[in-house]
């Protein structure tokens, strides 16, 4: 009938129509359907600086190694409290300009960590700036590229109050009369990274992660980001420490001079009464003159997790102080909440 072996026109038309039809079903229609997505009520818009930062992010191909999607499987719950949903991308995935389309942020490879929630995980600007100047200043094993061209070397005498000076360690920059000053490009980029925080969903329903075998065996319902895991077994403080704290305080507890204070030998860490230490973790800290501010972790870590981390910190690198219990953390948390309410 169609005589495809001999009728060229029919052959070409049929393959065109077939492919275009299938493409409509599998690509164009679903894409149009996703246009209807609305942002979450609490979702903040990107500021101009953050948007410029996003452009820098795309221009340098960051998405090649960093994903921005928390999948709905349990192994991804270290990257966010809940699986990502289409609304999360409402503001960031708009067309960039006439020449460039909506940025591909979800990514297909995780050579570096997922960044969905990096604004909560790494809130400190100073950490990000050091990390951008050369990732190995803060994470020795990192294979991420360095971006020194986003910084300027400025003579010490020329540095003004408006300049953001980055305390790069000597091994990485050894010119005593010069200072490393962040250019607007990198400040915007960091502003964008700091803005990456998962928005709370309205209402009690949170989409769940598909559990993996471990939780299934223990019969626990793997609730995403649950802060009240009272039945959970003893947590591994060392592991939690390297996930949450080591980026700044370093794996060996020594910190980085001029940026992040050491925990090894610290008076606060060795104090018999852990109250101040717990407060710092819950609320953040900005009282040490030679170091950058520490962001609060009260929302991210459960009482048990904080207790496990502090116990690890208080018994490592030569530190010698009694263990911390979840009860103690809970008490301090309540105290802090009461103070804030007043």
């Amino acid at each position, binding site marked *: 009938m169609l005589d495809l072996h001999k009728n060229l026109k029919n052959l070409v038309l049929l393959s065109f129509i077939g492919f275009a039809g299938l493409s409509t079903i599998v690509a164009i229609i679903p894409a149009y359907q996703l246009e209807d997505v609305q942002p979450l009520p609490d979702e903040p818009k990107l500021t101009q600086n953050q948007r410029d930062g996003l452009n820098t992010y795309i221009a340098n191909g960051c998405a090649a190694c960093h994903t921005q999607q928390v999948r709905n499987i349990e192994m991804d719950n270290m990257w966010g409290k809940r699986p990502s949903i289409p609304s999360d991308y409402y503001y960031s995935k708009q067309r960039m300009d006439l020449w460039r389309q909506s940025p*591909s942020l979800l990514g297909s490879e995780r050579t570096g960590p997922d960044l969905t929630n990096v604004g909560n995980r790494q809130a400190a600007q100073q950490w990000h700036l050091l990390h951008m100047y050369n990732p190995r200043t803060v994470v020795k094993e990192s294979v991420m590229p360095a971006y020194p061209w986003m910084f300027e070397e400025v003579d010490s005498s020329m540095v003004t109050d408006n300049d953001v000076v980055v305390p790069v360690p000597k091994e990485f920059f050894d010119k005593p009369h010069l200072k490393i000053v962040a250019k607007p490009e990198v400040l915007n980029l960091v502003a964008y990274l700091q803005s990456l925080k998962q928005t709370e969903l309205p209402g009690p329903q949170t989409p769940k992660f598909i559990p993996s075998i471990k939780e299934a065996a223990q019969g626990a319902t793997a609730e995403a980001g649950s802060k009240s895991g009272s039945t959970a077994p003893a947590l591994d403080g060392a592991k939690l420490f390297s996930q949450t704290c080591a980026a700044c305080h370093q794996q060996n507890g020594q910190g980085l001079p001029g940026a992040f204070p050491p925990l090894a030998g610290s008076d606060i860490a060795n104090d018999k009464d852990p109250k101040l230490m717990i407060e710092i973790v819950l609320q953040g800290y900005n009282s040490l003159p030679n170091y950058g501010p520490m962001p609060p972790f009260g929302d991210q870590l459960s009482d048990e997790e904080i207790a496990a981390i502090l116990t690890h910190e208080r018994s490592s690198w030569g530190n010698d102080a009694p263990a911390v219990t979840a009860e103690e953390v809970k008490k301090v948390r309540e105290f802090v909440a009461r103070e804030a309410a007043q």
Partner: protein
Amino acid sequence: MRKGNYTLLTAFILLSEYATAQGNETVSTENWLTSPGIIGTIVLILIVFFVAVIIMLVKLNSYIEKYKDRQVLRKNEELRKELIDLEESGIDSLLEQRKKALKYKLSGEELGGNHLALDKKGLVGKVEGDPQNPMFDEKKRATPQLHVPEPLKKIVLYYLGTATFWLVFGTTVGEYLGMKFMWPDMDHVSWLSFGRLRPVHTNTVFWGWASLAMIGLAYFVIARTSNTKIHSYKLAWYGLILINLSVFLGNWCLMAGINNGGGEYREYIWPVMILFAAALVITFINFYKTVARRKVPEIYVSNWYLLAALIWTTVLTVIAYWPTYQSGLGETVIQGYYMHQGVGMWFMTFTLGLIYYYLPSSLNKPIYSYSLGVLAFWTQMLFYTMIGTHHFIFSPLPWWLQTVAIIFSVGMFIPVIAGTTNFLMTMRGSWSHISKSYVLPFFLVGVIFYFVGSSQGSVQAFRFTNYVWHFTDFNVAHSHMTMYGIICFILWACIYSIVPKLTGREPKQVWVGAHFWLAFIGLFAYMMSLMVGGTLKGLSWLDGHPFIESVILMKPYWAWRAVGGSLMFLSHLIFAYNLYSMARKSKPVTDAHPISVTKITA
């Protein structure tokens, strides 16, 4: 063939059930952690499929044998009848003849006589009597030069030449990127930073090397199978210039930090990609008009694939760059669709078209089954188109879209097995040629990778395996297995089989061998290191170890990858030299060894 199709269908149904079972939220997360190294599963599945294919071949064989036996029986029957019907005198003369035949003896001079061996007309090109060289089979020479119109020859060579330039350039970049995994502080130049160079590597080898080589090779196929001249050489040149221009400008933009949004293979901004699309349209018009005035009634199956690949890719590019439905996750739906179809509808479809011509022509026999080729064609369109979203499994994209992608990924077994069977059956009976030809090993490796790479891709799409492998370096291994193992090896096979026929000049066999083995061993090292490393990385994530540990554990595997990559890169330099030695103009066509000639004439 009906039986074969039935087997395929059963396999398809069984597998879809298996794959969708993974969709059920609580099932099947149990088996996989208790059996760490999901490789086992995959190996088993692959073995099963190998066995299935072998069984199918054996079955087919026995069918054919039975049919032949019946033919023999029928002939015997006929002979018996004839004998019974013979007359007396007839029988006598037959017996007389038989007596004579039994007494016959050879005189010993039937073949040669006792003349001197002389080559008066200079027909002997080369005498190889060297007992010092027993290591390798002397490879068969390509059949003598074809009579090809000079402009066609020129255009094919220019396409291949520029393609090879981009191959060397693109893999230099790739090699450099591989080294950056070990020495991230190699340079601190913005234009050379990892994130900017990575798309330069992928886009150059895609749009520069593979696309140009494919189109160049196809110009010959189109003209040859239509038994006519190319519609317009001018259009062919425009296409060549446009593609080269778009790759050059595109790379320039990428290194300057101008890209379309970071979606893989969609990094060129539209003003650049439109040049490439224009080249596609021009090439399509040129091919279409050439095929339209063919001097044979039928459209050879190669041309189905070539024309369709051009239409499909044009449609694909338009859909990918069309702005109205791409805010939010709409972009991601299109990205999954595009990055998969870019490979499936352009590189794979087009390359299949090339195999359907070059494989049988270099074996000097017809393709095994024309209808299998047609079946593979339509199923390629149906199944490949639907599976893009399998790059975003467990993502916030609609669950139904993910499930469709997984089911149709399983369906990919149909075109893949149909194609592989067709090619292997075409090669069947010519296996001895492999040791005698420098073209066939490339074809064989390409075809085997077509099966292994594609099946592996389908298996990887299951939610189950996706759990472990997604986001790891395993993906990089897979894409090299397919783009390199399939596409590059087939393109090399085609180039080595056609260029000597165009120019009458063959490459040095040692160098072709070096190219083959370096590329093959390099690819294997590359693949295995990333597959093993990627699996360990996935398992480390599943165990909830801190992320940085997965970086540390990858370091030795990245080193091995760089070793493999270096071998591949080296093979490309050799290939470039081989192409040069085939295409250069200086020496006259005769390739006879002067020494042997003087020996003979002396």
